[in-house]
């Protein structure tokens, strides 16, 4: 029982740090430089313990707290260990970065922020450990609540308040849905332990209802379309380390929930559940990526890209469910592995990117892409580390993002064996869409990096931007290293994921992969498909080396620095570069129907012509505002009950009495 105890110790440590911070409420330096790094180290320890626990048997524990007759049950199995690994690894870098990030006088007092931050971490860890519905729900909501306070840290700003409100509202409604899902699962037994829920084998209808509630609830947290609207609002509103955690780690807890309920408690289920997940995931991926390419605010861009990545993950889950429902263990394992690898990869590169924006934000105080540029000169550390994240985020070999993408496409390629012809038809289309999504992600990433770090600085102040400090570099470097390592050594990655797939599906890729050594990733067999990132990188670098040698060998001329050529145009300035809008313009044009675009065109006779384009989500106007209007309408209708006339009130009472008497009479 050693692992789970250690994890509880770590969680307790986090809480202790939070409480400690309360006593140092306004001593920014102490809180930032001392407490956050300590929290980070604890996170690293958590990752280590989780990794070790992943390869050992499941452990259980009970807390004294909880409902009467239902003490909080904890269970550490492979699934939770995997997600604890994600949490721990994600926390380390973020906390280190935060040590250099938080400054005095920014919204909430640093001590309070530290408390909320660590409560948030603890809640996430306990969500993955929870082994009964009540514990799960409590931790789930605590997570939402603490993150709400983190998001609203700078609550002087109205927009931040609105964003936080929207976030908590959707989180709460989703939580109620999850709660109802548990209500279905417990099937009137009144026993809320997962062991019991697992034992209840529901009939198809009830199971589907439960699954529906789960998808809605966890979808609202993960940011699946159409309940994603809170995400692009909340992430930019939060302080960058928080947005990093929200996007890279917290969204994954929703994936955990889907896995726990869909695969574990409901034992897989019907094929169309998988189809539903597939569809939702795909739509989210498409919407997310298309919107991220047209954003003009760097954190919004990343937020939408998170929606895209979550979409990809959910697509993988859906495929796995489909395979599982047809009893194809190995293919299910392939799809699930793809999803899980992406969970890990996304945790790393999205953290990296968000923290990068944090560094930029602090250096320049500017979050609008249209006012950034050329930061590669002034902040090389951040630029190069973020560059790694960008390549990974674009799903390029040989980095982390590509492995999962590769596995996902592989699992799509081998679906022809499905007995369901409808799916057979569908799945090539899905594969095509996935390819499109990934390519678009590349577009968005190039835009992100190019507009922020490359080209000429679009503002004066950017020239004075300072590079990240040591703490921030540690944080960024950790994630960059992670992206590289995961990209280059997929086989150990598969070993990790294999434990989970074995637990959930009873099948895994480890054996087949190990058959071909640690360099090559061949999930089904060498003759079917193989990918060796290390060799790949070796090949490319060899080619580069060859190129360099040839140049050295053949080159006779010298190298001279001069003004850019630009077809001989001389009066070139920074304003002539593509803005973020310009870079996104082709996508706006091609995917016009996705957006709700409002333009302000300048007239030819304008003295100071200006052009403004505002791209919004159609859903917002198509779904949410109507709902709000409906509620208001109902509220007005209900309000007529309370017209202040006492006779009317007496009449209500009288009529009610008569009606009830009549009911009893018959």
């Amino acid at each position, binding site marked *: 029982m050693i692992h789970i105890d250690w994890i509880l110790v770590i969680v307790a440590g986090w809480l202790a740090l939070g409480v400690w911070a309360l006593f140092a409420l306004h001593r920014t330096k102490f809180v930032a430089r001392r407490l956050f790094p300590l929290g980070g180290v604890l996170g690293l320890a958590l990752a280590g313990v989780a990794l070790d626990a992943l390869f050992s048997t499941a452990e259980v524990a009970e807390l004294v707290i909880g409902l009467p007759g239902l003490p909080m049950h904890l269970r550490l199995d492979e699934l939770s260990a995997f997600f604890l690994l994600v949490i721990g690894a994600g926390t380390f870098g973020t906390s280190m970065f935060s040590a250099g990030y938080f400054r005095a006088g920014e919204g909430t007092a640093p001590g309070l922020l530290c408390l909320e931050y660590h409560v948030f971490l603890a809640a996430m860890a306990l969500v993955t450990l929870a082994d009964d519905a009540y514990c799960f729900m409590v931790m789930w909501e605590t997570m939402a609540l603490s993150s709400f306070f983190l998001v609203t840290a700078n609550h002087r700003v109205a927009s931040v308040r609105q964003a936080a409100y929207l976030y908590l509202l959707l989180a709460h409604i989703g939580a109620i849905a999850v709660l109802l899902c548990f209500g279905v699962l417990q099937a009137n037994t009144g026993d809320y332990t997962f062991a019991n829920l697992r034992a209840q084998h529901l009939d198809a209808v009830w199971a589907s209802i439960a699954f529906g509630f789960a998808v809605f609830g966890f979808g609202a947290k993960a940011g699946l379309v159409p309940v994603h609207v809170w995400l692009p609002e909340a992430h930019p509103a939060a302080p960058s380390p928080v947005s990093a955690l929200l996007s890279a780690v917290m969204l994954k807890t929703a994936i955990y929930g889907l896995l726990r309920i869909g695969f574990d408690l409901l034992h897989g289920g019907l094929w169309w559940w998988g189809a539903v997940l597939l569809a939702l995931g795909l739509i989210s991926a498409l919407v997310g990526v298309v919107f991220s390419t047209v954003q003009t605010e760097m954190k919004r861009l990343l937020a939408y890209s998170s929606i895209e990545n979550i979409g990809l993950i959910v697509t993988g889950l859906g495929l796995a469910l489909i395979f599982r429902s047809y009893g194809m263990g190995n293919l299910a394992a392939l799809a699930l592995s793809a999803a899980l690898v992406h969970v890990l990869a996304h945790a790393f590169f999205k953290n990296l990117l968000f923290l990068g924006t944090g560094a930029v934000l602090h250096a320049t105080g500017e979050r609008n892409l249209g006012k950034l540029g050329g930061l590669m000169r002034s902040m090389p550390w951040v630029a190069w580390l973020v560059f790694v994240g960008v390549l990974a985020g674009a799903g390029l070999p040989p980095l982390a993002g590509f492995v999962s993408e590769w596995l996902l496409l592989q699992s799509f390629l081998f679906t022809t064996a499905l007995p369901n012809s409808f799916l057979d038809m569908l799945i090539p289309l899905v594969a095509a869409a996935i390819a499109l999504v990934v390519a678009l992600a590349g577009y968005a990433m190039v835009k992100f990096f190019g507009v922020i770090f490359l080209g000429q600085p679009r503002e004066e102040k950017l020239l004075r931007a300072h590079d990240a400090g040591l703490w921030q570099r540690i944080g960024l470097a950790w994630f960059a290293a992670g992206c590289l390592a995961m990209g280059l050594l997929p086989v150990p990655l598969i070993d990790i994921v294999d434990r989970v797939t074995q637990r959930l599906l009873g099948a895994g890729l480890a054996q087949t992969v190990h058959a071909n050594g640690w360099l090559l990733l061949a999930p089904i067999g*060498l003759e079917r*498909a193989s990918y060796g990132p290390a060799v790949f990188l070796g090949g490319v670098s060899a*080619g580069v080396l060859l190129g360099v040698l040839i140049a050295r060998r053949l080159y006779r*001329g010298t190298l001279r620095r001069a003004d850019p050529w*630009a077809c001989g145009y001389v009066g070139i300035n920074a304003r002539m570069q593509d803005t973020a809008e310009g870079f996104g313009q082709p996508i706006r044009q091609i995917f016009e129907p996705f957006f709700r675009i409002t333009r302000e065109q300048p007239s030819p006779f304008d003295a100071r012509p200006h052009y403004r384009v505002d791209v919004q989500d159609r859903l917002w106007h198509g779904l949410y505002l109507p709902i709000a209007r409906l509620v208001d309408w109902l509220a007005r209708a209900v309000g007529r009950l309370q017209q202040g006339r006492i006779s009317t009130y007496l009449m209500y009472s009288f009529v009610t009495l008569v009606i009830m008497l009549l009911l009893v009479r018959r």
Partner: protein
Amino acid sequence: MNVSTTGILAQSLEIALALAAAPLLLGWVDQWRARLQNRSAPPITQPYRVLRKLFHKESVVAGSASPLFRFTPYVMFGCMTLACAIVPTISTDLPLATAADAIALVGLFALARTFIALAAMDIGTAFGTMGARREMLIGFLAEPALLMALFCTSLITHSTSLANMVGTMSHRHYVLEPSLAFAGVAFTMVSLAENARVPVDNPATHLELTMIHEALILEYSGRHLAMMEWAASLKLFAYSCIGLALFFPWGIAEVDSPLAMLFAVPVLVFKLAIGGVLLALIETASAKMRIFRVPEFLATSFLLAVIGLLVHQLLES
């Protein structure tokens, strides 16, 4: 991965062949274009001369250029070399081929594209960013199309490893595959776009309204430009080889038959020659289309490839 001596031999031979023959192929195509347009044709070795010239010129780099800018040409060169190395041109027994299958190959091209686009944005001129945007625009449509085209064949061969795909294709006794027809057309269209050929792009002009690839490399000169040009020719070579290997997979040597390789080289040369002429023919026959039409062009190829997949699912599985 099991590495045989013949494998290493074949691998190195292929790389050498690619490096040497790529500019030649380019020259051959240009020659034929000139002929077809009744111009006096440049010698087939013209690309070599260009390279030599560039290697002797001074390289001028913009003052604000970052290391990324200067590093990119070599990355391009490296990527394209690897691409040529993993595509089975004369033999399917390639040690490097196991490292990257069809999907990884597409990833490789995407990697190169990302680098060149970023390098173009690095200087911060209007042309550079414009070129980068257009390149990415083409890229995000071409990539999936290419992937789908490759998938058609991998659905037939039940493999994504290029060596096996080619091997199977060349072995199976001949049957008519409608899906392959779709895939082939799609692949051709993608290759045109990816290699900046007419009708998508015109390597011959510097007209800023139309140019794509040239805008990307506008700021390069001297050795960097040389590397870029060479990489471009390698890319063309790689694409042609993939096409030929997948859709006309005859005469490619199998495992452990060094002699077959000797036979394979002339076959390859022959196929490339034909391909080059065809390419020149296409380029002459068609007119450069407006940049706004390009997405439609690529979307068509994408759809063709997907239809190919569906056709395969319907008729052939």
